[in-house]
């Protein structure tokens, strides 16, 4: 199994843990990640207004590069995944944008959304299979109660993302079960943490993230996992320390016996 890999800017700096554990785990699971030779920031925010063309171009370049390599494009950060999938969808469905982007980039072969964009979790679910993940687990997190935080960008808008049931997703819970832990479902796992305004409106960010961490703690979660560096930052920084937050890949790498969980688990026992 080979994928073109788009790490994104944060995974090269502040979210090195996410990148590193993901690569280790992929290798152990027999998945080869080939980082795109040259990539640029995806823009971090999907340009919702239809006429913004320039900010879509870097994503189109990455998508096109993956197409030329003949592989699906794998992403990890929720924001990158969101932007890539939506821009790809635009390229498939919006003729105006497609024409403009191709006119601008002048590629040898025009791009029309041929690349399949796959999130790391989708790869685990659909390509590797959680059964296989479970078989490879050497140090299961037996009895540990873990809550999954999906956030906004992986799930919505579901008509484009087609990631999971947007209101009752299960891929991360299935992942938690696969590493031997007990998934905790809580109602705010798909509500916004407010990370988007964490820089300039800390009050709003705090309010939104506390709602998430508190609900997770109330439902008995011992840890919260996420796929998104911004969510992780915000839930840690503004979530009031109700529950420890980790990348899901940290747990994966630990369960596969590749790298111990940073900070361990502060368990009551």
């Amino acid at each position, binding site marked *: 199994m080979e994928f073109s890999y788009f790490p994104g800017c944060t995974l090269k700096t502040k979210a090195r843990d996410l990148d590193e554990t993901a690569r280790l785990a992929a290798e152990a699971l027999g998945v080869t990640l080939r980082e795109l030779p040259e990539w640029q920031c995806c823009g971090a925010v999907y340009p919702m207004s239809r006429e913004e063309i320039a900010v879509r171009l870097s994503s189109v370049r990455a998508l096109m590069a993956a197409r030329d390599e003949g592989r699906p494009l794998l992403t990890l950060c929720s924001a990158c995944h969101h932007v890539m999938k939506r821009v790809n969808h635009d390229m498939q469905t919006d003729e105006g944008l497609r024409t403009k982007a191709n006119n601008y980039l002048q590629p040898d072969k025009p791009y029309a959304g041929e690349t399949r964009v796959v999130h790391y979790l989708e790869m685990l679910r659909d390509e590797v299979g959680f059964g296989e993940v479970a078989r490879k687990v050497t140090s299961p997190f037996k009895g540990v109660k873990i809550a999954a935080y999906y956030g906004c960008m992986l799930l919505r808008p579901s008509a484009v993302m087609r990631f999971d*049931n947007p*209101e*009752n997703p299960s891929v991360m819970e299935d992942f938690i079960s696969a590493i031997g832990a007990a998934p905790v479902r809580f109602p705010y796992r798909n509500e916004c943490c407010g990370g988007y305004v964490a820089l300039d409106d800390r009050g709003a960010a705090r309010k939104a993230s506390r709602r998430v961490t508190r*609900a997770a703690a109330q439902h008995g979660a011992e840890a919260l996992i996420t796929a998104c560096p911004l969510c992780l930052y915000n839930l840690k920084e503004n979530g009031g320390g109700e529950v420890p937050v980790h990348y899901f890949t940290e747990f994966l790498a630990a369960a596969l016996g590749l790298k111990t969980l940073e900070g361990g688990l502060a368990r009551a026992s």
Partner: protein
Amino acid sequence: MQRIGVFVCWCGSNIAATVDVDAVAQAVKTEPGVAFSTNYQYMCSEGGQAIIRNAIAEHKLTGIVVCACSPRMHEATFRKTAATAGLNPYMVEIANIREQCSWIHKDREKATVKAIILSRAAVAKLNLDSPLTAGETPVTKRALVIGGGIAGIQTALDIADAGYEVDIVEKTPTIGGKMAMLDKTFPTLDCSACILTPKMVDAAAHEKITLYTYSEVEKVSGFVGNFTVDIRKRARSVDADRCTGCGDCMEKCPSKKSKSEFNQGLSNRSAIYIPFAQAIPNVPVIDREACIKFQTGKCGVCQKICSAKAVDYEQQDEIMTRRYGAIVAATGFKTINLGRFEEFQYAQSPDVITSLEFERLCNAAGPTKGKVMRLSNHETPKTVVFVQCVGSRSTVECGKTYCSKICCMYTAKHAMLLKEKYPETEVYVFYIDVRTPGKGFDEFYRRAAEEYGVRYVKGMVGKVAEENGRLRVQASDLIADKQLVIEADMVVLAAAIEPDPSARNLATLLTASMDTNDFFTEAHPKLRPVESPTAGVYLSGVCQGPKDIPDTVSQAGAAAAKVIGLLAKDKLVGNPCVAGCNEPLCNGCSACELVCPYGAITYEEKTVMDHGVREQRRVASVNEALCQGCGACTVTCPSGAMDLKGFTNLQIMAEVDAICR
């Protein structure tokens, strides 16, 4: 060559004032085939008709053209006149020189010229007319009703009361349908079971009605008046003739973990079961998926304890073939799957329920004996939030674009029943619009708000979250422009309704059309609302569109009246202006079969003479009893084999030629 008589009517001064009727009569004399022409003050009067009859006899006419008012007015009159004079009634053509000439033109000269042209076109058409005879088919005096809910029961009772045999085919083990599950009915709040069960008993006891429960329609052939239907009677594993309905088997059955369909999964039932106490027939059925005997071969308790020796594990499905004159679809509805509306936490919290589940909780014969309780902890809820339009009026993938029609009223009912039982309960209803078009309906809803203190809030619920054992409901109050957060104990979702999934397959069997939502389409949305476009197929209840009980019962009666009207006839006289296939020209392409909205065209292997060569070929064949004469097939036919009697290609071309001469 035809011998045509042309009769120009004055219509008093209606025509004669603007059109020179004599000039018209003179002008058409020279048209090919015209043997006689005249004019008269009122052709439709007895005197006028006598002139026509006499002329037919005297001039040995083979057809007549009447230049008068619209054919929509007197075509039938003149056809009868022709028939009494011994002519084929279809050897009559009308030139509309009143509505489409004298009444709209003022210039006498222009109007006269136009009247001549119109008359000439009618003559040209008549020259190509040939006598037509309407086909006759006998009627099997027995009706089939598919679906045993209130719609099917009512239709069957009305037909049976008129003296005709009716069979009801119901796919579940009992008749009664959704109405049997309801607690009270709006707007009178009388108990649903109290008004339904007597009807169920009537249906079962009626000498003209035969019930086939746990049965499905498998095959339909034939056409109006003459359907042949295969019914699969699924094996109950219990001999209905022997069973006394004592219920011992259900009590002793060790497999008791199946969800009760009747209680919306809120309680369990045994593998051998009767859906509810008043079920008809009162004969258990074995759910073979759940039965230990059928799954493992070990058990057989029910057979051992049955003193009537009714339990029969060897019973097989039975296919019965029956003939019917008319078929009524009454397949009803179900609530939509809420899997994509999880912002309301339906699958995740036991305290979030659908309205139909609430109905069972309210019902004294229900799983909680009428005690409304939170399913998580069996406590009485103190705050209850009702959410309207869950999946209705939605244009997104998982919703339904239509209004489900019944939710506003049953929610008002639920709110009232709740307040009646537990006056201290805080009750909220979140609505987009409250729709109450029905007798006494708005008054009913206002009573809920004004007398019972139910809080109606205009706005939608956006998110339900379980917090500290309660439900945090986040919603809009659009009038106050506020976001409300309500700590509720129970949330009741008014899920959209959709046609029962069995309707899709049935529509295919019946060649009855459906709309994009899988509701059956009616023959005409205003004027023929209980008939399907397929002759002999009628619609009753929600299978045609969302309806409450009063509407369903009215429509059920209307469908019955249509069926009775059909069965009362000994013979069906068809419309003779139907399509026909010129077999040597037919290339067997099936294009006509695909466009026919009535399923009137089939293909047959036939021996055809083509240029003196005898050949075996696949050719189209029109069932004249089903064809309604629209002509869609005639234009689709690439080889010109299909033509429409009374409006043939050559006739219309002749009219074109006569007008453009």
